[in-house]
C-alpha cells in the first residue's frame, strides 16, 4: 500500500545517511594518546611507488594493530588538484605527502597540524640528516617531516665528453667552462650540450646562492631584481639561439620524458636522485660538481624532496604522528623504498637502504658534499608553485623567440607581483 509510507521510509533513511556522512565530530581527549584509529593517507606517485607504499603500510599495521591505514594516490598535478578540493571541502586526508613548494601555502591556510605537539612523544626526529632537520618548520611550528632529500647537481654522459675531447667537469669549473663545454660538445658530436637551461629557476637559484643570495627571501619576496633576471634570460636566450642546448620544440614534444633519458643531451643540471630514472635507459651517466664562479661555494643544499604532513582537521593526531615517524625512521621502510622518495631522510634509513648502482652514486655524491651543503632555504612563499610554472611558461616563449628577454623579465615580475602580493 501507501506510497507515502514508502516515501517516509526513504526519507528517514536518507536523513540517517546524511547524518552519518556529516557526522564524526571532535575527537577530544589527549592529543598525544594514540587509540584505535583509521587513517586516510594520500600521496602522489605512480604504480611502482604505490606497491612500495603498500608494503610499508602493511608493516606499520602489523606493528600497530590498532591503527588502520587506507591509502590513495594520484600523479603529481592531479594530486594537488584533489588536495585543494578536499581541503576546501573539509575532507582532507589525515596524513598527506607534501611538497616543499606547497608547504607554506597549506600551512598559511590553516590546513596543517603543528607536529611540534607530537615531537618526542609519537614522533621521533633526532635521526634526521642535518640539512633536513627543521626543513618543515615555519614560524616555529612544524608542518612537515621530510621523507627524502636531494640536491641540485650536474648529471652528464662521460662518453660524449670524451668524444668531443672535452675534459670532464671537475671541482671548481666555472660557468664559462660549463658553457664552453656545452658548445664544443654540441658542435663536435651533434648531440645538444645541455637541456632547458633557462627554463629551470633552480639554475637561477644556484647562481644566486653562489653569489650569497636567495631565490625567495625570508619574508617571501623575490630574492633578485629585474637586472639580475635579465642577465639570466639573456644568457638562456643566447644558449638557445646558438643551438648549444636542446631546441625547445624538441623538449616540448618529448614531455613527460626527460632529455637525458632519451640521450638527447650530453649533460644537464638537475635533481641528483633523477639519476635512477635516467640510468634505466642511459646507464653510463655520472654525477659531477656544479659550475661555480666562486671557488669553494657550490650553492648546493639538501632539499626535502617530499615531506609528510598531518591535516589540521585530523581526529587522530597521535596515530597520524606515529605513521609519519614510522615512515621516516624505520630501517625496514628505508630498505623498502631505497631512493624512490629521494635519498632516505635519516641516518638509520640511509644505512639500511642498500643502494646499488646509480643510486649508490647519488648517495656517494651527497655524502661527499655533506659538509659543503649550504643552509636549506626557508620554505618558499605561498604561490611559489604558480611562479615556477610561470617561469617555465615565460622562458618557453623566450626560446621560441616570441618575446624578448626584456619582455620575459617584465612578464615574470608582473605575475610575481600579482601572485606574491596577494
Amino acid at each position, binding site marked *: 500500500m501507501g506510497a507515502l509510507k514508502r516515501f517516509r521510509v526513504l526519507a528517514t533513511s536518507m536523513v540517517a545517511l546524511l547524518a552519518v556522512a556529516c557526522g564524526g565530530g571532535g575527537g577530544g581527549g589527549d592529543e598525544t594518546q594514540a587509540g584505535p584509529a583509521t587513517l586516510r593517507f594520500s600521496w602522489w606517485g605512480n604504480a611502482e611507488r604505490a606497491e612500495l607504499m603498500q608494503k610499508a603500510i602493511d608493516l606499520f599495521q602489523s606493528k600497530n594493530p590498532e591503527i588502520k591505514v587506507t591509502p590513495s594516490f594520484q600523479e603529481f598535478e592531479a594530486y594537488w588538484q584533489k588536495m585543494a578540493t578536499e581541503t576546501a571541502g573539509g575532507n582532507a586526508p589525515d596524513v598527506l605527502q607534501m611538497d616543499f613548494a606547497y608547504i607554506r601555502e597549506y600551512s598559511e591556510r590553516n590546513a596543517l597540524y603543528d607536529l611540534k605537539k607530537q615531537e618526542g612523544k609519537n614522533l621521533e626526529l633526532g635521526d634526521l640528516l642535518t640539512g633536513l632537520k627543521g626543513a618543515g618548520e615555519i614560524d616555529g611550528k612544524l608542518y612537515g617531516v621530510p621523507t627524502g632529500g636531494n640536491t641540485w647537481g650536474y648529471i652528464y654522459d662521460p662518453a660524449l665528453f670524451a668524444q668531443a675531447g672535452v675534459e670532464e667537469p671537475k671541482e671548481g669549473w666555472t660557468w664559462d667552462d660549463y658553457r664552453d663545454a656545452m658548445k664544443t660538445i654540441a658542435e663536435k658530436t651533434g648531440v645538444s650540450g645541455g637541456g632547458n637551461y633557462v627554463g629551470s629557476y633552480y639554475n637561477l637559484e644556484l647562481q644566486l646562492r653562489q653569489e650569497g643570495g636567495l631565490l625567495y627571501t625570508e619574508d617571501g619576496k623575490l630574492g633578485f631584481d629585474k637586472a639580475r633576471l635579465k642577465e639570466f634570460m639573456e644568457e638562456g636566450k643566447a644558449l638557445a639561439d646558438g643551438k648549444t642546448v636542446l631546441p625547445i620544440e624538441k623538449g616540448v614534444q618529448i614531455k613527460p620524458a626527460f632529455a637525458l633519458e632519451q640521450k638527447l643531451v650530453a649533460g644537464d643540471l638537475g635533481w641528483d636522485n633523477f639519476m635512477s630514472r635516467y640510468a634505466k635507459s642511459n646507464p653510463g651517466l655520472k654525477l659531477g660538481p656544479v659550475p661555480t664562479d666562486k671557488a669553494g661555494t657550490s650553492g648546493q643544499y639538501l632539499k626535502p624532496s617530499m615531506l609528510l604532513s598531518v591535516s589540521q582537521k585530523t581526529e587522530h593526531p597521535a596515530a597520524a604522528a606515529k605513521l609519519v615517524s614510522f615512515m621516516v625512521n624505520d630501517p625496514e621502510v628505508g630498505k623498502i623504498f631505497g631512493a624512490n622518495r629521494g635519498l632516505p631522510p635519516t641516518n638509520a634509513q640511509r644505512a639500511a637502504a642498500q643502494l646499488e648502482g646509480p643510486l649508490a652514486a647519488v648517495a656517494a655524491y651527497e655524502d661527499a658534499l655533506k659538509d659543503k651543503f649550504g643552509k636549506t632555504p626557508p620554505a618558499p612563499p605561498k604561490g611559489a608553485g604558480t611562479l615556477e*610554472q610561470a617561469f617555465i611558461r615565460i622562458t618557453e616563449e623566450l626560446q621560441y623567440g616570441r618575446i624578448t628577454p626584456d619582455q620575459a623579465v617584465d612578464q615574470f615580475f608582473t605575475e610575481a607581483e600579482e601572485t606574491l602580493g596577494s
Partner: protein
Amino acid sequence: MSRATIAPDRRAEVAPAGRTGPRERARLSGDGLAGYLFLSPWIIGIVLLTLGPMVTSLYLSFTDYDLFNAPTWIGLENYQRMFTDARWLRSVQVTAIYVALAVPIKLAAALAVAMLLNSKRAGQGFYRAAFYGPSLIGGSVGVAIVWKMMFSDDSVVDQVLLKFGIDTGGWAGNPDFSLMMLVLLATWQLGAPMVIFLAGLKQVPRELYEAAEVDGAGRARRFWSITLPMISPVLFFNLLLETINAFQVFTSAYVVGGPNGQPAGSTLFYTIYLFDRGFGDYRMGYASAMAWMLLLGVGLVTVFLFRTARGWVFYSGDSGDKR
C-alpha cells in the same frame, strides 16, 4: 493533481492524519506523488548537481576565493581584471581561432562523407561504422596521446610530409601548427554530424534531382540549388551543436599542451586557462567569473547564429516567396 481528484476514495485511503488541508493531501496522494517520486532523480540531480553549483559559481565570481579561506566580496573586479589579463586575452584568441577553423572544416568533411555514403553500394554499413568509429574513441586521453606522437618530430606525419618536400618538423612542438593538429583531431571525429547529415540527405525528394537533371543542371548546380537548401535545417542544427562543443574543447588540448597551453601558449584554450586558474593557482573566484563569461560568449554566438539562420535556413512548408 487532476487525476487525484478523480479518485477521491484512494485519496482518503492514504491521507495522513493531522493538520494537512485538502489541497495538500491531494498533492501527496496517489498518482501525483508517484509522479514526483519518478521525477525525483532528475529533480535532485538538477538542483544539487546543476542549479546549486551554478548559483554558487555565480556568487563566487564576485568574490576573491582561494578554496581555503572564506570568499570575500570584491564586486566586479574579477570581470574587470580579465580585460587586462594577457593570458585571458590569449585564451580567447586561441579559442576563437579554433572555433572558426574546426567547425567549418569538420562540418564540410562530415557533409562530404555523408554524401559519399548516401548512395546504394555494397558494404555501406561497414563504411558508416568505420567513419563513425573515431567519434566513439576520439575524445579519450589515449587517442590524444597517440595523436601527439603522430605529430612529433620524425613520426608518421612528419615523414609523409617530407616525402612531398614539405618540412614542418613536428607539429606538436611548433606553435604555428599545434592548433591545426587539434583541428584535425576534431575533424577526424566527424561521426555525429555525419549521421545527422545522412538522415537529412535521405529526406531530400529524388524527384527534385530528376527534374533538375532533365533541365540540364550539373552536379555542382544540384548541390548548391537542391541539396544545401533542402538540408539547411540539419546543417543549422549541426552548426549550433558543433560550435557549442568547440568552445568547450578540453581533454585533447590538455593532453597535448598541458596547463600552460604548450608550445608557447598556442593551445591555451579558454577552458584550459579556466582550469589552471581555478585548480592550479587556486583562484576560484576568477575561474568562476571566467566560466560565466564563457557562458555569455557562447550565448551571444548562439543568438547571432539564430539571427543569421532566418536568411538561409528553410523549413519545409515555407513558401519560397516569404524570403
